[in-house]
């Protein structure tokens, strides 16, 4: 009996560890955006990785319907190279952002899995001097693949609560 309880305890501990590992990865990921380390952020994606922010809450396809963002690595690189341009007027002065992540769920909870489906909730504050502060928030859905002692992002989907609202210009990914 005691052995079975240890087994459950061991599994629970393993689950906790992988959840914590994923959470730490996500905190680092969104932190790179806040620190404007865009090139490092792109490097977290797999070669065929995608970043997607749909324009409808129930949108299940980025190809049949328009999106706020739907970037492969090439488009991410073009977009973020633009943010480095000295005359990117939409970002002069540039946004300061703060991403907060929580309610992280990891599936499967098995620490030895090759890939994980991860869910989370987020809030992103975006302040541009002279333009006030905006808040965006909603749900993240990731597919992470294990790579060594860390992960890479096969896909990241950010579904804003108000993704179908009429937005002012947006420059920094959620």
């Amino acid at each position: 009996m005691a052995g079975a309880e240890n087994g459950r305890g061991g599994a629970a501990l393993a689950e906790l560890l992988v959840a914590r590992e994923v959470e730490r990865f996500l905190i680092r990921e969104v932190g790179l955006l806040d620190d404007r380390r865009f090139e490092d952020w792109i490097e977290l994606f797999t070669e065929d990785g995608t970043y997607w922010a749909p324009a409808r809450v129930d949108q299940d396809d980025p190809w049949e319907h328009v999106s706020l963002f739907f970037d492969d690595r090439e488009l991410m690189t073009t977009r973020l190279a633009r943010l480095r341009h000295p005359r990117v007027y939409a970002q002069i002065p540039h946004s300061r952002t703060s991403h907060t992540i929580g309610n992280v769920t990891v599936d499967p909870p098995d620490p030895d899995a090759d890939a994980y489906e991860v869910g989370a909730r987020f809030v992103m504050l975006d302040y541009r001097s002279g333009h006030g502060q905006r808040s965006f928030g909603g749900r993240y859905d990731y597919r992470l693949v294990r790579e060594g002692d860390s992960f890479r992002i096969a896909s990241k989907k950010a579904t804003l609560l108000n993704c179908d609202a009429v937005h002012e210009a947006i420059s920094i990914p959620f």
Partner: protein
Amino acid sequence: MLANGDLSRLVTDTRIHRDLFQDRAIFDLEMERIFARSWVYVGHDSQVPEPGDFLCTRIGAQPVVMVRHTDGKVHVLYNRCGHRGVKVVAEEEGNAKRFMCMYHGWTYDTNGDLDFVTQPEGYPEGRHPDKVRDGMGRIARVDDLCGFVFANQSEEGPGLRDWLGANAVCLEDLADSAPDGEVEIRGGVHRYMYRGNWKFQIDNLSDMYHPAYSHESSSRPTGQQFARRKGDKGGIEFRGKRGRVKSMDPLGVSALPNGHSWQGGLPQIENTSELHREYVRRLEARHGPERTKEVLTKTRHNVIFYPNMAMQELNPHIRVIRPVAADLTEIFVYPIRLKGAPEQMFREQIRILNGTHSASSMVQTDDVEAFARAQEGLSTTGNEWILLARAGEEKVDPATGRVSSIGTSEVAMRNHYATWLSLMSRA
């Protein structure tokens, strides 16, 4: 109320006064004299394919419903109850047998006629609401071209085709660029807004002077922008040898009667992808090689349908300009699907439109930044005028009244404000 004489002082041959962008009374008058008296783009009939299908939108600042009635006809209704004026339809789109007002339960047919008044015994003889007069109210004139539905709140003035003039051909050419000869609006809508006047967007759509400057950050160090179409070998060239800005003058710009205008087509970029070849094959099957070649040679870039819509064929979409206030404007951008074209082509269209026309695009975000800065800059009082003096040689086509000039000429903007003044001056 502004006197007409005051208005004419605000528009000269080469200058327009900042009040056109700042003054709230002028904005209100624009809604009355421009948006209520010209053919305003409302939607495409493919958005309401079945009887009862409806779509809520606006004409100027007024909420309206575009709806297909049981007889197949598309109507545009004022979105208000005949009783106490409550907005009847709250959903953005959907299908309804009838519309019911939430306040006292009155119902309306999909042509806007009053269908049923609750507790009718409360209206004695001679007081019963009238089917039409107390209905939601239909916009006076609704007409379409190639499925593009326009509405005019005035019974007076030219019909749609006369109003559009040579612009009508642009919609017909767009339909011809679909292997099935028809287009539809599909794939949702990009929505964004800016803190600036609606006319900045109209002027910008004919402005071939700004891209190399405003959009410099979207170009590579070679001076070339990203490709606008799948398989295109590169995009617009902002800069040529030794980094000099390449003038867009050779592309030309055209000003048409009633405030419409076109930018000349961008230089053709070679596309050898299998997807494009399949599209060409399908077009040739419909039109033969000669017409196909014509259809593929884009002689126009953005085409402005004054006062509230622009269409682009290169990556087919329409842009709807929705004025909210003198200093606030919404822009809605809808992808256009060419029926009969390879499905993958539409998917690529959507992908590229995300990069160029979403709220987070790499192009429009710079334009809206310019519009907001113009709104702010024009609040200064040291100089009360905007200068629109750029010009080149002008040629007039007597058949259509089209004036064409060099690409960076501001002739289309001068034409826009000449139309603006003539519409605004009619009491």
